């Protein structure tokens, strides 16, 4: 009996640091942000507010900067999630069919994962930027194909969006390639041998065997991809600098931070409302994903 008691005390002592940190920096803020989002006219300096209501939500939803950020975020999500998953799939399949230099390729493809996205973003910016001194590496390549130079960093919206998506895909691919190569490798080769004897074409093997068998992993990547892309922010800063509103490239998360870190001491209420909206969107999309997967994904 005494032993049980002693174990109980040890256990709670062991868990104490985790409980304190989780409580202060995760549970309390979670509740607090909800409260913030309904406190109208909160003043950061005096820590007072005028009343309770949905004004913060209404403000955010009518703020043109937020609308712009919402639009940008959706475009990034819709383009980068399918593209990156698709490219990662093609690369992983190609990798699964070769033996020579396979490890070298895998190592190279993984490199972006261990780089500081802010730092490499700066390199991308320089490669795509057009200045008085140079049109930049990418434009020179474009010129070689006979097209005219474009300023991808401070030029037209679609050009900026292109760089944005390109960089995002560049950043998220390593993880997806890694996951897909290992899940393709885990399909028992006996199924391919069986299919081969039955005269199955390579394409059909892929659709009928590989794809269903790795579908849970693809689905996992799509869900994490959606969640990640909805939270896009630092890649944008890396390319377009901290003033994303001026560049017209802000995202929802960027909007939240801008609201929080304003010159006037910030508007945590607006930031909270925006954060809750973001969370609702991500949650809804994840639920939809789960429902869709029930019908399409094979689980052993």
């Amino acid at each position: 009996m005494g032993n049980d008691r002693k174990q109980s005390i040890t256990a709670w002592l062991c868990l104490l640091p985790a409980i304190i940190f989780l409580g202060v920096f995760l549970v309390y803020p979670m509740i607090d942000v909800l409260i913030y989002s309904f406190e109208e006219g909160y003043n950061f300096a005096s820590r007072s507010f005028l009343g309770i209501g949905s004004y913060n939500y209404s403000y955010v939803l009518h703020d043109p900067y937020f609308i712009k950020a919402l639009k940008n975020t959706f475009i990034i999500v819709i383009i980068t999630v399918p593209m990156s998953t698709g490219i990662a799939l093609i690369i992983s399949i190609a990798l699964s069919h070769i033996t020579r230099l396979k490890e070298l390729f895998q190592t190279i493809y993984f490199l972006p994962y261990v780089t500081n996205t802010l730092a490499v973003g700066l390199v991308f910016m320089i490669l795509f930027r057009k200045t008085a001194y140079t049109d930049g590496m990418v434009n020179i390549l474009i010129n070689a194909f006979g097209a005219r130079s474009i300023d991808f960093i401070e030029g037209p919206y679609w050009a900026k969006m292109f760089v944005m998506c390109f960089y995002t895909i560049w950043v998220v691919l390593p993880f997806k390639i890694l996951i897909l190569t290992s899940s393709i490798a885990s399909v028992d080769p006996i199924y391919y041998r069986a299919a081969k004897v039955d005269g199955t074409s390579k394409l059909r093997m892929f659709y009928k065997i590989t794809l269903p068998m790795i579908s849970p992993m693809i689905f996992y990547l799509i869900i994490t991809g959606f969640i990640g892309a909805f939270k896009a922010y630092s890649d944008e800063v890396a390319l377009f600098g901290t003033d994303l509103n001026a560049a017209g490239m802000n995202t929802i998360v960027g909007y939240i931070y801008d609201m929080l870190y304003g010159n006037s001491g910030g508007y945590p209420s607006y930031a909270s409302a925006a954060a809750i909206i973001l969370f609702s969107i991500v949650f809804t999309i994840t639920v939809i994903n789960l429902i869709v997967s029930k019908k399409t994904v094979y689980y052993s």
Partner: protein
Amino acid sequence: MTGNTDFEKIEREYNAKEIAGNILRYVFLIFWALIVLFPFYFMILTSFKSYSSYNGEYVPRLIVTSPTLQNYVDAFTQVSLLRYLLNTLVFTVLTTAIMLMIVILSAFAFSRLSFKGKNLLFALFLSLMMIPNELVIITNYVTITNLKLRNSMPGLIFPSVISVFYIYLLKENFEQIPDELYKAAKVDGTSDIRYLRKVMIPIARPTIITITILKVIECWNSYVWPRLITDDPKFFLVSNGIQELRENGFGRENIPAMMAAVVVISVPLMVLFLVFRKKIMEGVARGGTKG
């Protein structure tokens, strides 16, 4: 059955298709490898070009004719790159160390000790995994500001030390250690904590290393929280440093010097990666989430 000639034709076509497929694969893989590698090549290349030669090239040259180390000297003297690096190092080491302690203790309690409400508490912990960082960062920002911890190491570190996912990962690993070992240790009069130190941690070392590596990568690249909580360059981490460099550094648009700074910042993780390549890739496949 048809004659022999048909078979030879099928065989030839089959082999030709195999070869063509292989060529196509390699061409594609090399193409993408170039896209991945080019930015790295470009930053290293440019970091060795002199300011004047870089700006003199309308079409940037892909080789460097007279390499210079001046940019690296500038990066360390004209801006506080060394300070950013040191800050990041301190931040990374402390955050990872504190996190490891918390994670190991919690995983130990959940996997080895029995106490009332264990399952409920664990379920509660798991449900916390769903809370996105973006949601809690607002209040944390306010909390840290109120505690007057802005522009301080504790302010940077505290909200970053916890990860429910790693507790879960390690708990699973601890649970695979057979009960017999614990009973044997108990018979020998070993205390729980000694058992944790002498048996569980050594056995679960691979997982602990994985967690450490993942956390180090995360710390080295963290940007959002440091940006919110520091505005004094004395406390900048490398990510903020880079942003600062880009917007205010070097007085003029000194791209080669910036690239030198980028190379310096990227090198530590690259070296870590090349040394622990297998471990890191396995670790990310098991517990990575970025992407």
